[in-house]
């Protein structure tokens, strides 16, 4: 017990810090992407292989919506896996560190996904492997602890079918494995007698006591569970994760290696003569434990842009626009387009777009994931919804629901758009679906937030319907749609004005500017003053006296004109002027180039 406690505490502390620390927004997003409905009749999920495991796992995974609760359940399951390994393979306390290899692998299996959480068609990518492994190890333990032959016979009769039906791949693996153990262990024992003449290595590998054989068993079984995933690498062909819900298949290629190396220790233990050297065994097992922890931490997807985007998204969905801006401001690295889009939306919502938009970080940092429409997948419906393009918000929420399942994240926007469109019966259908979840009822029931959102969006819906397509390029479509639009509500004209500036299309500037001028009550937002000065200058004139330009802005512009006329090429100008003019439309217009929308 003394040796078990430190390992247990170390693992629990590590997992809690990792999950509840940097990965907290990832957990919340995972819950929103978990399709779990509490009232599914038992027959429905028992009616297909692996149905029970997936249903229970999805239920537990949806608890990530309350991060501490979900983490408590997840870490408990992972810790229990280590104890199940110990019990199943009768591993003594000196080797206890080895028992945590599976737990770390299962943790990493989830934490390394990052953006892929959106595109993996698995209802419970975190919990299903954990619970499946737990059940499999427990069944193996049960086998080894059964004494009477008739119990073993019953086990062999029941487990293949029931195991597969209830636990899928995890259950299916148990029976062949115990059969292999029964035959294999007997065979290994013979090596003591027959292999002495055959060769030193084989004898050392295969001969030995029960401890060695059990360590062997653990390593082989765990490798067996990883086998389909490893085959995936060898065959260079992705396996469909839905078929049998193969464990560890979500581990990326690089990630599989550490676990194979870690498992090599118990696998080749026979070659290391440590019998009776308890201290050395403990040290070796502790090294494996620490290495597995380091590998898990290293490969966990902690990309700040990804996690910041999730935080910004969750704040936006809660209507906390200031929070969105604060996260954008605090961000230290070049933002992705998703972050830029969320920042612009928050500035528009808070009415600060005209004063601050060009003061926020701009950029197009690549998404650290294989090529895909990540912006659309993460925040497409959110952006379209808030910008009043309800047809496209509904479309993409539906397309993703078709592709990835009835996830609450999509139902939320289907419901919101139906409400906004006045499609009451349709809204009630989605409300009913959300009410069947445990943690996402509030997204349909929070009528106050719905009303606040709707009041802000309706003015943006004052345009003529048309047939169109966006090819999934959300930002590009939104920018052009507003930049090229004419008329509409005050909010639409302001978006047209600003998106014209963002796309550097200044042809429609003056009509929009003049239309909005009376609404500013003499206090023209800074960026529009900057644009008026610059566009007038480009057109060879100056703003008329009816446009009240602040003297400080006028002087700043004059200084820019003087300084830039004395300087060299564009690149050196950009560098020299960034500190003083980096937060202006002028700087954006002349020096910010090569941004890739979406």
């Amino acid at each position: 017990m003394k040796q078990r406690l430190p390992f247990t505490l170390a693992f629990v502390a590590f997992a809690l810090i990792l999950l509840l620390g940097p990965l907290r927004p990832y957990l919340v997003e995972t819950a929103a992407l978990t399709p779990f409905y509490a009232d599914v009749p038992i027959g429905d999920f028992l009616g297909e292989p692996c149905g029970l495991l997936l249903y229970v796992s999805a239920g537990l995974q949806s608890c990530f919506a309350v991060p501490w609760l979900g983490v408590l359940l997840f870490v408990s399951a992972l810790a229990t896996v280590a104890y199940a390994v110990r019990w199943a393979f009768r591993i003594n306390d000196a080797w206890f560190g080895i028992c945590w290899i599976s737990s770390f692998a299962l943790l990493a299996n989830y934490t390394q996904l990052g953006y892929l959480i959106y595109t993996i068609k698995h209802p419970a990518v975190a919990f299903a492997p954990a619970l499946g492994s737990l059940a499999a190890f427990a069944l193996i333990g049960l086998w080894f602890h059964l004494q009477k032959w008739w119990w073993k016979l019953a086990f062999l009769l029941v487990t293949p079918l029931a195991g597969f039906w209830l636990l899928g791949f995890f259950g299916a693996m148990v029976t062949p494995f115990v059969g292999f153990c029964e035959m294999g262990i007997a065979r290994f024992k013979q090596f003591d007698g027959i292999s002495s003449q055959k060769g030193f290595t084989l004898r050392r590998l295969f001969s030995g006591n029960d401890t060695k054989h059990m360590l062997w068993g653990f390593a082989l079984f765990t490798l067996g569970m990883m086998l389909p995933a490893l085959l995936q690498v060898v065959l260079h062909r992705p396996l469909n994760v839905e078929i049998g819900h193969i464990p560890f298949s979500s581990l990326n290629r690089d990630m599989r290696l550490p676990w194979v190396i870690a498992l090599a220790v118990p696998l080749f233990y026979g070659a290391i003569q440590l019998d009776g050297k308890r201290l050395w065994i403990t040290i070796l097992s502790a090294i494996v434990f620490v290495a597995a922890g380091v590998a898990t931490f290293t490969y966990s997807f902690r990309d700040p842009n990804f996690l910041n985007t999730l935080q910004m998204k969750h704040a936006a969905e809660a209507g906390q626009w200031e929070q969105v801006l604060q996260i954008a401001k605090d961000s230290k690295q070049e933002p992705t387009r998703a972050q830029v889009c969320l920042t612009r939306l928050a500035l528009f919502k808070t009415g600060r777009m005209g004063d601050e938009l060009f003061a926020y970080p701009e950029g197009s940092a690549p998404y650290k994931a294989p090529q895909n429409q990540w912006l659309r997948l993460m925040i497409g419906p959110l952006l379209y919804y808030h910008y009043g393009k309800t047809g496209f918000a509904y479309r993409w929420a539906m397309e993703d629901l078709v592709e990835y399942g009835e996830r609450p994240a999509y139902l939320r926007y289907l419901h919101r758009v139906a409400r906004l469109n006045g499609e009451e019966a349709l809204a009630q259908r989605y409300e009913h679906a959300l009410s069947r979840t445990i943690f996402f009822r509030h997204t349909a029931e929070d009528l106050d937030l719905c009303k606040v959102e709707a009041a802000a969006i309706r003015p943006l819906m004052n345009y003529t319907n048309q047939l169109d397509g966006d090819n999934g390029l959300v930002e590009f479509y939104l920018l052009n749609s507003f930049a090229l639009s004419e008329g509409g509500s005050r909010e639409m004209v302001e978006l047209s004005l600003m998106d014209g500036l963002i796309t550097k299309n200044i042809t429609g500037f003056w009509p929009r500017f003049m239309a909005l001028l009376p609404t500013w009550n003499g206090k023209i937002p800074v960026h529009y003053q900057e644009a008026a000065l610059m566009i007038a200058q480009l057109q060879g004139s100056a703003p008329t006296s009816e446009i009240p330009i602040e003297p400080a802005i006028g002087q700043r512009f004059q200084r820019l004109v003087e300084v830039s006329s004395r300087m060299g090429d564009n690149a050196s100008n950009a560098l020299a002027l960034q500190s003083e003019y980096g937060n202006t439309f002028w700087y954006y217009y002349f020096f910010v180039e090569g941004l890739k929308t979406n």
Partner: protein
Amino acid sequence: MKGPESIYKCIAFVLTMAAVLCSCKPSIPTDYEEVSWSAITSPDNFGATLPPNIAPLNFRILHGDATEAITRLHSKQGGEIIATGWDVCFNVDDWHKLLDQARGDSLFCDIYIKAYGQWVHLPTQHFIIAEEPIDPFITYRLIRPSYVTYEELTLHERSLESFEERVIYENMRFEDSDQGQCINCHMPKNWNRESQSQFHVRQALGGTVFINGDKVRKVNLKTDSTISAGVYPAWHPTQNLITYSVNETGQVFHTLDPQKVEVIDYASDLILYNIDANTVQHVEHTASDFESFPAWSPDGLTLYYISAHYTARADNIDADLDNNYDQLHYNIYARSFDPKTCRFGPRNLVFDAEAIGKSASVPRVSPDGIHLLFTLADYGQFHIWHKSADLWLLPLGTEEERNAMPLQAANSPESESYHSWSSNGRWILFSSRREDGNYTRLYISYFDKQGLAHKPFLLPQRSPLHDLEMLRSYNAAEFLVQAVQPTQRQLRRTIKGNAIPAIYAGSALLNPETVTPDTRTRSEERRSESVGY
């Protein structure tokens, strides 16, 4: 206790308990108040005319302020079923016994609810039970009301006499990460009397699957001379022939309109496929007219179809039609057919929808050949997305008698679209989005001898919440008099193999028209063969 004595006591106890349990039949309250407000149920099928062999019409009682509910379903002949609770689910056998009693008469439904401690009796509701039975099976596809993506698609066969449903074919087995598999349009010949039917498989392992008894074969109907493989099918009633539309279809999306999607044909023709000869012939082949949705008359001497004349306003068809999608109006036309020579006669206008500013689609002739049932909406042909779409009926008599009328009792403010006749012509199965404007559900309406439709009822489901909770749509439903024979395994085996290529054999017209080459341009990424109706 002594041995035998204790056993007797046990038996007595069990028997007593069984007797007590058996006697716990719910009873109607004796003390209640009559009220005038109607029962609110989901679905609301009361007043509909039912077939005498239909599955139980289970429903949920929606009265939020009530605490208990008892329902009594009874016939004039004295039979009754009593159910308690909000979800009223009838035993299938008891229901059928009651329907047998009430055949040609009515069934009555009394609902009692307990509100604020007092039982009240809501006004008695009724169903009319027709004499004529309905075909025992239907087939349909279940699909999300989706746009471009699709995932799990299933062709189902459902018993109308019970809730039994089986999957004829599902697409996920052959789907891989590179290519999905789309399936659509399961269409039987003559209500599957001769066990002949067909459906399409698109993309991965694509082809049209022909079922003849337990034999299955797969054919590639796309030839170099036709614009696509076969799409909307119509079996010839007596010959081994099928007419198909061939379509270049695209989807475009509304930015604001709750109708959400437009499915537009950018080109379409008609072809005739001869199953025995494995040949494809053109029936309609003009660039300036879009033809689709063929349908045979029951005698096999006339082919009906829809056609819209397209006047190009720009070189790029996509851009042109995207901007003028609401200017395409489809009329119903017909061509005579000689089964001996397999040649079609000249084209005749049957219903001029354009003249009344409308557009017709999915013409279907009744089994007695007297009526043409079709969908009419403001524009286009893919009416499932058009809220203006309603069912209309055209008597196929002389020209003077051809006075089309809406099928009033069957229609709703939302879309009514794809429809089919039962083999005896007394039942119409049609899809409607009347529940919420987005999810298609199946309704069945009685069509009486006077040519009038009766209030339709929703396809019965075991759970009253089924239609609320299922986020998929019913698609292209057809009646069958007998089940489809091949198993999924047989179908998969054939689908896995190669498709037999069909051979192009020129025009099937008696006097072939000169075909002008189509010089207009299409956006390549917008091309697709078909979209689920």
